[in-house]
Protein backbone atom coordinates (compact mmCIF):
# COMPACT_ATOMS: atom_id res chain seq x y z
CA UNK A 1 0.00 0.00 0.00
CA UNK A 2 2.84 2.30 0.97
CA UNK A 3 4.65 1.49 -2.24
CA UNK A 4 1.55 2.31 -4.29
CA UNK A 5 1.13 5.65 -2.53
CA UNK A 6 4.74 6.49 -3.27
CA UNK A 7 4.26 5.58 -6.93
CA UNK A 8 1.15 7.77 -7.24
CA UNK A 9 2.96 10.67 -5.57
CA UNK A 10 5.92 10.28 -7.92
CA UNK A 11 3.63 10.16 -10.96
CA UNK A 12 1.79 13.29 -9.80
CA UNK A 13 5.08 15.13 -9.28
CA UNK A 14 6.31 14.11 -12.73
CA UNK A 15 3.11 15.35 -14.39
CA UNK A 16 3.28 18.66 -12.50
CA UNK A 17 6.95 19.19 -13.43
CA UNK A 18 6.29 18.39 -17.09
CA UNK A 19 3.35 20.81 -17.29
CA UNK A 20 5.33 23.51 -15.46
CA UNK A 21 8.28 23.25 -17.86
CA UNK A 22 6.01 23.07 -20.93
CA UNK A 23 4.17 26.23 -19.84
CA UNK A 24 7.47 28.06 -19.33
CA UNK A 25 8.76 27.02 -22.72
CA UNK A 26 5.62 28.04 -24.62
CA UNK A 27 6.00 31.48 -26.19
CA UNK A 28 3.16 33.86 -25.79
CA UNK A 29 1.83 34.83 -29.21
CA UNK A 30 -0.94 37.37 -29.48
CA UNK A 31 -2.32 40.25 -31.51
CA UNK A 32 -3.75 43.40 -29.97
CA UNK A 33 -5.65 46.08 -31.88
CA UNK A 34 -6.95 49.43 -30.60
CA UNK A 35 -9.39 51.74 -32.38
CA UNK A 36 -10.09 55.46 -32.30
CA UNK A 37 -13.43 54.92 -30.53
CA UNK A 38 -11.55 53.46 -27.55
CA UNK A 39 -12.43 49.84 -28.24
CA UNK A 40 -9.78 47.16 -28.52
CA UNK A 41 -9.51 43.48 -29.19
CA UNK A 42 -7.04 40.74 -28.45
CA UNK A 43 -6.65 37.79 -30.81
CA UNK A 44 -5.13 34.49 -29.77
CA UNK A 45 -3.51 31.88 -32.03
CA UNK A 46 -6.07 29.82 -33.88
CA UNK A 47 -8.46 32.65 -34.64
CA UNK A 48 -8.84 33.79 -38.26
CA UNK A 49 -7.91 37.39 -37.45
CA UNK A 50 -4.76 36.33 -35.64
CA UNK A 51 -3.53 34.14 -38.49
CA UNK A 52 -4.14 36.93 -41.02
CA UNK A 53 -2.34 39.65 -39.05
CA UNK A 54 0.46 37.28 -38.02
CA UNK A 55 1.05 36.36 -41.66
CA UNK A 56 1.35 40.06 -42.56
CA UNK A 57 3.69 40.77 -39.62
CA UNK A 58 5.97 37.84 -40.50
CA UNK A 59 6.85 39.79 -43.65
CA UNK A 60 8.67 42.31 -41.47
CA UNK A 61 10.28 39.77 -39.14
CA UNK A 62 11.87 37.56 -41.78
CA UNK A 63 15.49 38.58 -42.54
Amino acid sequence: MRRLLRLVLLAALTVWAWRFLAARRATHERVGVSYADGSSLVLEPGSTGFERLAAVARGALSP
Partner: protein
Amino acid sequence: MDVAQALQELTELSAQVERAVVLDAEGSVVGSTVADERATERLATVARDLTTAAGELHAGGDEVTRVEVELRDGAVFVLREGGRTIAAVTSPEPTAGLVAYDLRTCLHAIEDTPKPRRRRAGQEPKEEADE
Protein backbone atom coordinates in the same frame (compact mmCIF):
# COMPACT_ATOMS: atom_id res chain seq x y z
CA MET B 1 12.85 67.87 -33.81
CA ASP B 2 12.83 66.34 -37.29
CA VAL B 3 11.95 62.73 -38.10
CA ALA B 4 15.56 61.52 -38.33
CA GLN B 5 16.43 62.99 -34.92
CA ALA B 6 13.29 61.56 -33.31
CA LEU B 7 14.04 58.09 -34.71
CA GLN B 8 17.65 58.29 -33.57
CA GLU B 9 16.49 59.19 -30.07
CA LEU B 10 14.05 56.26 -30.17
CA THR B 11 16.76 53.72 -31.01
CA GLU B 12 19.03 55.19 -28.33
CA LEU B 13 16.33 55.06 -25.65
CA SER B 14 14.67 51.74 -26.46
CA ALA B 15 16.84 48.66 -26.44
CA GLN B 16 13.91 46.57 -27.62
CA VAL B 17 13.26 48.45 -30.87
CA GLU B 18 15.37 46.93 -33.65
CA ARG B 19 14.12 49.06 -36.55
CA ALA B 20 11.39 51.59 -37.17
CA VAL B 21 9.83 53.67 -39.93
CA VAL B 22 7.59 56.74 -39.88
CA LEU B 23 4.89 57.26 -42.49
CA ASP B 24 2.90 60.39 -43.26
CA ALA B 25 -0.88 60.59 -43.63
CA GLU B 26 -0.66 59.37 -47.24
CA GLY B 27 1.37 56.32 -46.21
CA SER B 28 4.66 57.52 -47.68
CA VAL B 29 7.89 56.88 -45.78
CA VAL B 30 9.22 60.07 -44.17
CA GLY B 31 11.92 58.50 -42.01
CA SER B 32 13.59 55.21 -41.19
CA THR B 33 16.24 53.76 -38.91
CA VAL B 34 17.23 51.32 -41.66
CA ALA B 35 19.69 52.31 -44.36
CA ASP B 36 18.47 49.60 -46.73
CA GLU B 37 15.67 51.05 -48.86
CA ARG B 38 14.07 47.66 -49.58
CA ALA B 39 13.89 46.77 -45.88
CA THR B 40 12.37 50.17 -45.15
CA GLU B 41 9.72 49.75 -47.84
CA ARG B 42 8.98 46.21 -46.62
CA LEU B 43 8.31 47.45 -43.07
CA ALA B 44 6.21 50.32 -44.44
CA THR B 45 4.15 47.87 -46.52
CA VAL B 46 3.64 45.65 -43.48
CA ALA B 47 2.49 48.69 -41.47
CA ARG B 48 -0.03 49.69 -44.15
CA ASP B 49 -1.29 46.11 -44.57
CA LEU B 50 -1.60 45.59 -40.81
CA THR B 51 -3.71 48.73 -40.33
CA THR B 52 -5.91 47.77 -43.29
CA ALA B 53 -6.39 44.20 -42.03
CA ALA B 54 -7.00 45.39 -38.45
CA GLY B 55 -9.55 47.94 -39.68
CA GLU B 56 -11.50 45.20 -41.44
CA LEU B 57 -11.88 43.34 -38.13
CA HIS B 58 -13.90 46.20 -36.62
CA ALA B 59 -17.57 46.42 -37.55
CA GLY B 60 -17.75 50.17 -36.88
CA GLY B 61 -14.94 50.85 -39.34
CA ASP B 62 -13.23 53.18 -36.87
CA GLU B 63 -9.67 54.27 -37.42
CA VAL B 64 -7.02 51.88 -36.14
CA THR B 65 -4.78 53.59 -33.59
CA ARG B 66 -2.56 50.70 -32.54
CA VAL B 67 -1.67 47.21 -33.73
CA GLU B 68 0.75 44.93 -31.95
CA VAL B 69 1.60 41.48 -33.22
CA GLU B 70 3.72 39.42 -30.85
CA LEU B 71 5.19 36.29 -32.38
CA ARG B 72 7.90 33.78 -31.48
CA ASP B 73 10.52 35.49 -33.68
CA GLY B 74 9.76 39.06 -32.59
CA ALA B 75 7.01 41.62 -32.53
CA VAL B 76 5.66 44.30 -34.85
CA PHE B 77 4.09 47.48 -33.48
CA VAL B 78 2.13 50.04 -35.48
CA LEU B 79 0.93 53.27 -33.89
CA ARG B 80 -1.10 56.01 -35.59
CA GLU B 81 -1.46 59.47 -34.15
CA GLY B 82 -1.89 62.96 -35.51
CA GLY B 83 -1.91 61.79 -39.12
CA ARG B 84 1.42 59.99 -38.75
CA THR B 85 2.15 56.29 -38.42
CA ILE B 86 5.15 54.68 -36.79
CA ALA B 87 5.95 51.01 -37.25
CA ALA B 88 8.63 49.13 -35.35
CA VAL B 89 10.08 45.65 -35.12
CA THR B 90 11.23 44.51 -31.70
CA SER B 91 13.00 41.54 -30.19
CA PRO B 92 10.86 38.57 -29.02
CA GLU B 93 8.71 39.00 -25.88
CA PRO B 94 8.93 42.79 -25.66
CA THR B 95 7.50 44.92 -22.87
CA ALA B 96 4.52 45.99 -24.96
CA GLY B 97 3.50 48.98 -22.83
CA LEU B 98 7.02 50.36 -22.77
CA VAL B 99 7.54 49.97 -26.52
CA ALA B 100 4.19 51.66 -27.23
CA TYR B 101 5.17 54.52 -24.90
CA ASP B 102 8.53 54.95 -26.65
CA LEU B 103 6.90 54.94 -30.09
CA ARG B 104 4.27 57.49 -29.01
CA THR B 105 7.00 59.70 -27.54
CA CYS B 106 8.86 59.51 -30.86
CA LEU B 107 5.73 60.56 -32.79
CA HIS B 108 5.12 63.47 -30.40
CA ALA B 109 8.73 64.60 -30.75
CA ILE B 110 8.36 65.06 -34.50
CA GLU B 111 7.49 68.65 -35.20
CA ASP B 112 5.30 69.70 -38.07
CA THR B 113 7.14 71.28 -40.96
CA PRO B 114 6.79 75.05 -40.42
CA LYS B 115 4.38 76.64 -42.85
CA PRO B 116 5.78 79.48 -44.98
CA ARG B 117 4.84 82.88 -43.57
CA ARG B 118 2.41 84.97 -45.49
CA ARG B 119 3.81 88.14 -46.91
CA ARG B 120 1.68 91.17 -47.56
CA ALA B 121 1.44 92.29 -51.15
CA GLY B 122 4.19 94.73 -52.00
CA GLN B 123 6.19 93.94 -48.83
CA GLU B 124 9.82 93.08 -49.53
CA PRO B 125 11.70 90.42 -47.58
CA LYS B 126 13.74 91.95 -44.70
CA GLU B 127 17.20 91.06 -46.06
CA GLU B 128 16.46 92.59 -49.40
CA ALA B 129 14.87 95.72 -47.88
CA ASP B 130 17.96 96.38 -45.75
CA GLU B 131 20.31 96.39 -48.73
